[in-house]
């Protein structure tokens, strides 16, 4: 398995290179001048041109790419034009929020999505099933920012139960209780994704339930819960595991909107703000980190597949 993982990582390198080239070209095609943004409203064209030269932004694109790639291979993603800080440390600052948000969201997805999906499948065709699968589809149809706005209005402004926005680091005053800042954002982000998982768990459990080996299990005289858990759910998990992987990757992307609504200092909002400021190195860095994350997730999903389903062999 380890050998397979290493091999896969090597296969990823060309994809990663292609992706980074793509990012680089895209981003430098964006109109707008970081030097002008940085110097502000009163800067003269001469000052802007000088800063552009100092930042190396006047060199041909391919030279910039080669330079950047060379640094990237040494683990250096460059320096943020706006913050004048290494991109890696800017991203690392945002990563705490984003990772905690993603983990917390996955927590809700598992807590709500899996049991509701299981109940929906085992009560197939009843009003419980119709309510939960219909409700799941409805939840997936709500724009996240709209949901977020109303959650803030209800739970923060009106009821005053939860903080509305922002997220002080866990290392800040308050420690672990600062997690409550992430409750509303993670629930907002979880809603459409939990809906996906509910429907997926339900569908794959129904598929598995029809399989012959479940009948064999029942013929053993096992308790129905044992059949549902050890035979139906366990097998349905194979399909669900893949979805978890994709959901996790999707979360990172969808967090852009959620982090904006809840003003969380995460990577998603960083990328939006950096696009507005034309902070090229940060945009590149964040997107590459996310692409790498996505690829690692894919790899982990494949490994999980092999672990969950002995029929899959890793080649």
């Amino acid at each position, binding site marked *: 398995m380890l050998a397979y993982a290493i091999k896969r990582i090597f296969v990823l390198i060309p994809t990663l290179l292609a992706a980074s080239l793509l990012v680089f070209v895209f981003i430098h095609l964006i109109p*707008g001048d970081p030097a002008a943004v940085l110097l502000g409203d*009163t800067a003269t064209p001469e000052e802007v041109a000088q800063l552009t030269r100092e930042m190396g932004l006047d060199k041909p694109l391919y030279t910039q790419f080669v330079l950047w790639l060379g640094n990237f291979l040494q683990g250096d993603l460059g320096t943020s034009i706006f913050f004048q800080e290494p991109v890696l440390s800017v991203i690392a600052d945002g990563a705490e929020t984003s990772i905690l948000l993603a983990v917390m969201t996955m927590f809700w997805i598992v807590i709500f999505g899996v049991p509701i999906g299981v109940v929906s499948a085992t009560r197939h065709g009843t009003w419980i099933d119709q309510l939960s699968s219909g409700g799941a589809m409805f939840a997936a149809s709500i724009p996240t920012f709209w949901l977020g706005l109303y959650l803030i209005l209800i739970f923060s402004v009106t009821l005053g139960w939860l903080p*509305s926005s922002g997220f002080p680091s866990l290392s800040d005053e308050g420690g672990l209780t600062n997690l409550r800042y992430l409750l509303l954002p993670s629930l907002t982000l979880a809603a459409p994704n939990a809906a996906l998982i509910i429907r997926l768990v339900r569908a794959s459990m129904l598929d598995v339930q029809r399989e012959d080996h479940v009948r064999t299990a029942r013929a053993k005289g096992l308790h129905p819960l044992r059949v549902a858990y050890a035979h139906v759910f366990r097998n349905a998990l194979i399909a669900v595991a893949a979805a978890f992987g994709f959901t996790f990757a999707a979360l990172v992307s969808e967090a852009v909107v959620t982090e904006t609504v809840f003003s969380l200092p995460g990577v998603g909002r960083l990328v939006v703000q950096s696009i507005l400021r034309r902070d090229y190195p940060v945009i590149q860095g964040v997107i590459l980190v996310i692409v790498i994350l996505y690829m690692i997730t894919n790899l982990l999903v494949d490994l999980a597949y092999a672990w969950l389903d002995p029929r899959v062999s890793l080649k």
Partner: protein
Amino acid sequence: MKISLWWKSAMAGCAALLLANSAWADGTLRYATVGEPPSLDQHVVTSDLATTIAHHMFEGLYTFNSANAPVGLLAAGEKLEDDGKTIVISLRKGVTFHNGQEMVAEDVLASLNRWGEHGSRGGLLYSNVTSIEASGDHEITIKLKAPFGPWKNLLAFINGGPAIYPASVAAAAGKEPIAPEDYIGTGPYKFGEWKANRHVELVRHDDYASIEAAPDGYAGARTAHFDKIRFIPVPDVGTRVSGLKAGDYDYAESIPGDLFADLDADPNVKTILNGGPIFGLIFMNSKEGPLKENFALRRAIQAALDKVPALQVSIGPEKLWRANGSFLPEGNVWYSDAGADNFSRGDTDGAKEMAAKAGYQGEPIKFMVSTNYAFHYDQAVVFTKQLAQAGFNIDLQVYDWATLIKKRAQPDQWDLFFTHHGFVPDPILISVMNDNYPGWWATAEKAGLKAKFTGTADEAERQKIWSQIQTAIYEQVPTMKTGDVYTYNIASPKLSGLASSTLIWPHFWNVDN
């Protein structure tokens, strides 16, 4: 089964988080900002946000009192000699920097020199300076080529202005903004930390040497009551409002006008008007395109606009805007109605006629506006409609701010663009007075008036000349003012010591909760 266990732990977790009280120490002020400043180095950065944060740390020789008059801050007093061509400034003694060193003339000299050479607004003064030297441990002597009226305003205006840094910092820094670890000033708060994307934190400077006089505007005694001030970027305005209401922030800036009535009536929110209005400006391209040197066509455009509906739509409550043609607000010494009858004529038919006479034949006029500032866009939409009614072929181009400021530097890309200007104490600081500012207004008339304007220190004379400049602006129309906007901020009612309005940038010395 396991599900019930999951539920229990989830519920327990929720309860624990809900019950956890706000763990914030009362000694921290949390300020929701519109974004992040590019740097806090006052010499080179003119962002208002940067100054809002930085003027707690950095101080200048002078500052403004509540009447917007410059008064001493680090300066103890000054003498004008040689018909105003020599200025001798004596410094306060016993003022220490955050690093513990005492502030002496050498520090002031180094700071002024860097500002004069590289600072955003330093060139204005320094182009008139022949020499500047430390004439004592606590004395600075500035020699001017000619008497220069705005010197004290320029020294007092901290935004892009001469903040006093230790000589070691100022001398080592060149053109580049100084790094956060070198943020060393004399103010009541000192630099704590800057976490990118998260917050800028200031902490109280316990050895602050305050002036012993009653607080008056930015002048007078400054006492730091909070242990920390945290400036948290909250770019989404809705989030700033709900965050303040929910108690997550103590102060939030830049709130939309339409919410004013509700927030003002809300006992849980205190509204604070900004004393100095900002105003929208539509610049015209003097370098290229159909508007170049065609002053008649420009006046036709100016005549077509009715500013009132645009202000209504973009701002809302009448308390928050004035359809005021003077570049500086009523009550200010620079107030003048010269040329202002052309400010908002809204004369569609007249404009049509004027345009025809000016030889306009329906050439497209490119109007750039950004959505990053809602009121820019809202006003531009109204103006585009008005201009279309008057027969102008307006091509409204909507960009984000970064694209707009890149494009406006290229004369072939635009004919009109929308921006806004903050309140300034001296008209010389208004961007249109800068020949290099996009729009590139640099006619002979302007040059002549500008030379006279800076060439005298006589306030009455300067005010008279400013009226003439304003008339020229309405004649040659390098830019069109769209009206005064009084922005406002909101605060938690727990804060005491906040005035009902701010001068320009909010300050939190003398504020407590």
